[in-house]
């Protein structure tokens, strides 16, 4: 397939993905914004005003980066997993498989769609957060790059989940039983300095902890971890997950018989 044809195919997949999540905006864009706004009101405003400072910042300021990251992670993941699985379920994935599109273009299209939704929801949540806290940006390059890479990681993760999913339960198991606990225990609402030494070590095994903290560093300039290590880990995850996705597509796992 010629390069210009590959670009058109990629653009077509991304357009269809964006069209999908904007067509059902009441399911994809509004609920996460309402949920995160409730976090702002309840944890940030009502409870947070009694907590005082966390990590040297007002509690509301402390949790805002984590909540934005939570929205990005959940939406990047769920967009890809639900879109690719519903295409498998409706068999419309066959439209892609019979077309002369290289596997990496198919993958890139779905990942770009997942990132588009993750970043779109992240942006809306950021705008909403401005009603509750004065946000500055300590480092734009770090903030931007960590949110992009995190969105990419979880879009790839969503793709793998969708490949193996056989029913609608299978696409909610990982988000419910793995992602949500990891996010909640990933330092969104607290600094790990508050934890006993054992749980501090356990927290450091949670990859989301590094992503949240790096993003917080980009916005506030404060972090519990080494930012360079977090970026290295993100890149490693991307390489590994990308390799798995391409391998699965090449084998035709879940889509070819």
């Amino acid at each position, binding site marked *: 397939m010629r390069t210009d044809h590959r670009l*058109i195919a990629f653009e077509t997949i991304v357009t269809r993905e964006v069209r999908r999540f904007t067509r059902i905006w009441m399911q994809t864009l509004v609920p996460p914004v309402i949920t995160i706004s409730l976090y702002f009101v309840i944890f940030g405003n009502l409870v947070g005003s009694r907590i005082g400072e966390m990590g040297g910042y007002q509690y509301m300021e402390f949790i805002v980066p984590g909540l934005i990251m939570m929205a990005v992670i959940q939406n990047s993941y769920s967009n890809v997993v639900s879109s690719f699985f519903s295409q498998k379920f409706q068999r419309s994935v066959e439209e892609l498989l019979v077309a*002369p599109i290289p596997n990496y273009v198919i993958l890139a299209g779905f990942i770009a769609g997942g990132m588009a939704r993750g970043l779109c929801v992240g942006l809306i949540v950021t705008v909403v957060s401005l009603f509750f806290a004065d946000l500055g940006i300590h480092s734009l390059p770090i903030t931007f790059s960590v949110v992009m890479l995190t969105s990419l990681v979880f879009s790839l993760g969503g793709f793998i989940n969708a490949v193996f999913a056989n029913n609608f339960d299978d696409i909610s198991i990982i988000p419910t039983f793995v992602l949500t606990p990891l996010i909640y225990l990933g330092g969104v609402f607290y600094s790990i300095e508050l934890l006993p030494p054992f749980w501090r070590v356990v927290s450091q095994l949670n990859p989301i902890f590094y992503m949240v903290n790096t993003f917080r560093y980009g916005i506030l300039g404060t972090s519990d971890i080494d930012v360079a290590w977090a970026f290295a880990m993100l890149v490693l995850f991307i390489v590994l997950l990308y390799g798995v996705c391409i391998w699965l597509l090449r084998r035709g796992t879940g889509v070819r018989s």
Partner: protein
Amino acid sequence: MTVAIAVSQLEKRYASGTVALKGISLEVGQGDFFALLGPNGAGKSTFIGILSTLVTKTAGEVRVFGRDVDTHIYQTKLDLGVVPQEINFSQFEKVGDVVRTQAGYYGLPRKLAAARSEKYLKQLGLWDKRNERSRSLSGGMKRRMMIARALVHEPRLLILDEPTAGVDIELRRSMWDFLLEINRAGTTIILTTHYLEEAEQLCRNIAIIDEGRIIENTSMKKLLLELDTHAYVLDTDGPLAGDVAHEEAGLSLRKTDAHSIEAVLSGGRDINSAIAVLDGLGIRVASMRNKANRLEQLFLSRLRANGGGEG
């Protein structure tokens, strides 16, 4: 004859252990309208799945327009248009979007994609439906939309897996006309169907597949010439008073109900001999029809000869 498809010793064993294809070899000429017939579970859809790359073969070689599909996968896909048996498009997308999106998958620039989708949606009578959600289409419209989608990149080979299943007779005939037209324009077509009249009307060559093997592969003309026996149902213009039973060489008549008689002709006897006998008995024939499609009789006899089938 330039070959559009050359399949050699094609085998497919599924993970479940089912062997769907047992070393099929087959050639389809360029420009042909080719029928692939067989009972349910014979291996037709597996064969088509392998051609369209949705099913991976276990062994054998498949060449499309001279190219090995294993080593020329992208060019092969460009040459193919596939209309599957099952509905396989997003039910939530608009009709126009489904067809345009498929054009984009094949690398057609936006303007060309729009022009092609307009062309084929118009030809298939769906242009008025372009802004409707595809799930709102009737069964026949959905099938036509899948044909428009398969043609949008103008493939050299169109594979139709039971394209008229569930489509009413009037619509089916208009689809036949359309398919004959694109075949005349140069598109090679492979058709699987359960409507044997459809295969007889449209196809020049035929293969019958049963239990994963090709049991017949010839031209439609030759196959039909082999048919020696014809059965007709003759409707009389009044109720039959007594029994009608007549046997002579090449002609058998029997009453099936108060108003109809079955005539079975063989050995070159034609229908006039049956009508002459009935005339002699004072029975006038008001109308008549084939008892069964000619190809159907052959199809069933081949399956019976193969030791199975639905006959």
